[in-house]
C-alpha cells in the first residue's frame, strides 16, 4: 500500500493542472475573505467564511482530483502500466481512494489555513474564537468531507472511465439532484441525501440550510454511499478488460 501511495503522490504532483487546482481553491478562499475585512469575526462567522462559503468549490476540486485517478488512466491508456504495476485491481482501487481522500483533505486544509490567516489579519476577531469547539469541529468536518468527495470521485471515475464526465455527474448530483430532491421531499429528507447531509454536518450549528440540524445517522449516509460506489467500481474493474477508447 505504501508503494501505491507513493505512486499516487508522484502521479498527482507531476501534473501542473493539479497545482493550478490547489492555487485556484486557495485564491478563491482568499478573495472571498476580502469581503469580511473590518468586520467582527466570531466562531460562527469564521465557520461561514472558512467552511460553508467555499465548501462547494472545495468539493469540486476534490472531485477533480479523485476522478482523474482512473479517468486519466482510461483516457490516455495509462491503465495498462498502472495495472502492470498494481495487478490486484481491488487493492488498486482501495489505495487510490485512500490517496485521493488524503489529497482532498490536504487541499481543503491548505485552503482553510490560508484563509484563516488572512481573516485573522483583516478582521476584528473575538477573543473567545479559538476556544469554541464547534469551530474546530466544523473545520475538521469541512476538510474530511472534501477527502470523502475525492474518494467518491475515484469510484465514479472508474465506473464511467472518464474524469470530466465523473466531475460533471458529481456536480449534478450534489448541485442539482439533491437540492431538487430536498425541495420535493421536504427538509427532513436532507438527512438522507449524501451531499446535503454533509453540508449540514459541517455547518456551525449543524444546520446550514435552516431545515433543522441533522442527527448522528446523517454522518453514516455519505460513507454508505461511498462504500456502495467503491463496491460497484471494484466489481466493474474486476470484470472489465483494461482497454481504453
Amino acid at each position, binding site marked *: 500500500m505504501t*508503494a501505491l501511495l*507513493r*505512486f499516487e503522490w508522484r502521479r498527482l504532483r507531476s501534473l*501542473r493542472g493539479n497545482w493550478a487546482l490547489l492555487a485556484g481553491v486557495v485564491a478563491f478562499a482568499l478573495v472571498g475573505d476580502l469581503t469580511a475585512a473590518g468586520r467582527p469575526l466570531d466562531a460562527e462567522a469564521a465557520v461561514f467564511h472558512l467552511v460553508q462559503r467555499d465548501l462547494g468549490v472545495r468539493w469540486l476540486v476534490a472531485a477533480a482530483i479523485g476522478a482523474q485517478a482512473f479517468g486519466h488512466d482510461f483516457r*490516455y491508456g495509462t491503465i495498462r502500466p498502472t*495495472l502492470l504495476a498494481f495487478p490486484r485491481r481491488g487493492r488498486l482501487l482501495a489505495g487510490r481512494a485512500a490517496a485521493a481522500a488524503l489529497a482532498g483533505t490536504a487541499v481543503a486544509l491548505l485552503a482553510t489555513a490560508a484563509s484563516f490567516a488572512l481573516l485573522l489579519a483583516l478582521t476584528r476577531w473575538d477573543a473567545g474564537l479559538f476556544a469554541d469547539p464547534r469551530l474546530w469541529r466544523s473545520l475538521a468536518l469541512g476538510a474530511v468531507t472534501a477527502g470523502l468527495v475525492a474518494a467518491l470521485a475515484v469510484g465514479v471515475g472508474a465506473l464511467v472511465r472518464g474524469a470530466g464526465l465523473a466531475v460533471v455527474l458529481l456536480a449534478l448530483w450534489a448541485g442539482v439532484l439533491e437540492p431538487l430532491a430536498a425541495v420535493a421531499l421536504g427538509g427532513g429528507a436532507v438527512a438522507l441525501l449524501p451531499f446535503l447531509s454533509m453540508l449540514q454536518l459541517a455547518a456551525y450549528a449543524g444546520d446550514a440550510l435552516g431545515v433543522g440540524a441533522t442527527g448522528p445517522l446523517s454522518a453514516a449516509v455519505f460513507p454508505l454511499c461511498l462504500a456502495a460506489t467503491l463496491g460497484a467500481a471494484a466489481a466493474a474493474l474486476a470484470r472489465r*478488460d483494461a*482497454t481504453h477508447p
Partner: protein
Amino acid sequence: MRIQAQGLTKRFGGRTVVDDLSFTVEPGRVTGFLGPNGAGKSTTLQLMLGLVLGGGRTLFDGRPYRELADPPREVGAVLDARAFHPRRSARDHLRMLAAGAGVPDRRVGEVLDRVGLGAVADRPAGGFSLGMAQRLGLAAALLGDPRALLLDEPANGLDPHGVAWLRELLRAAARDRAVLVSSHLLAEMQLLADHVLVIGRGRLLADAPLRELTARSGSLEAAYLELTGGEVEYAAGGP
C-alpha cells in the same frame, strides 16, 4: 524466468480471437511472436498479463502475474507505446512508475540514458515521435531490471539505427532473461529471434527454433508465408 501460457482463450462477442493457445517462453533466448494482422498477438500478450480477461492461465516461474511478489521487478512489458499522460514529462512518467515499483529515482536517469532519451527527459511526452514513445515504453519496461520482457511491436516507429540498437539491447537482455517479442518485421526477427511462435486466427501454427523453420523453408519469410497463407484475415486485392 520461464513463462508458460496454458490454454489462453479470448472471445470478443461471438468471435474467438485467441483460441486455446499454449506455449512456453524459455529464459536465455529471444522468442519471436509472429502472426498476421488481427491474429491475436496483442490480445495474447494482454491475456498473459491479466490486462484482458479470458480463459486459460499464464505462469511466470509457476505463478500468475497478479500473484508475483513484485511484478515490475519480475516482468517488464511494452504493450502500447503511447501509454503515458501527454502533459507529463518522460522523467516524471518514469519516476511515478519507479515509485510504484520501489525503484530508486537514480534508476530513472540510468534507463533514460540507456534508451537515448536523457536529453529530452524533461519535455512533455505528448510531443514525442512514435520512435521516442517506444523508447520511453522500453525504459519503463527496463526500470525494475526484470527477469522477463514482453514486448508488443517494439520496433514500430524506430529508425534503422533504432532498430539495430533495439536488437542489441534485446540480444543482451536475453542472455539471462526470457524475452518475448511480437513483430511484423520478418527480416528483423530473423536477425533477432532464437525461437519463433507463429499464430493465425488465434491458433498456434508453429512453435519451433528459428533455425529449424528457416532450414525447412529457406527463410523466415518463406516459412511464415507458408504457415499463414490461409490465415490472413485482412488480405488486400491485387496490385
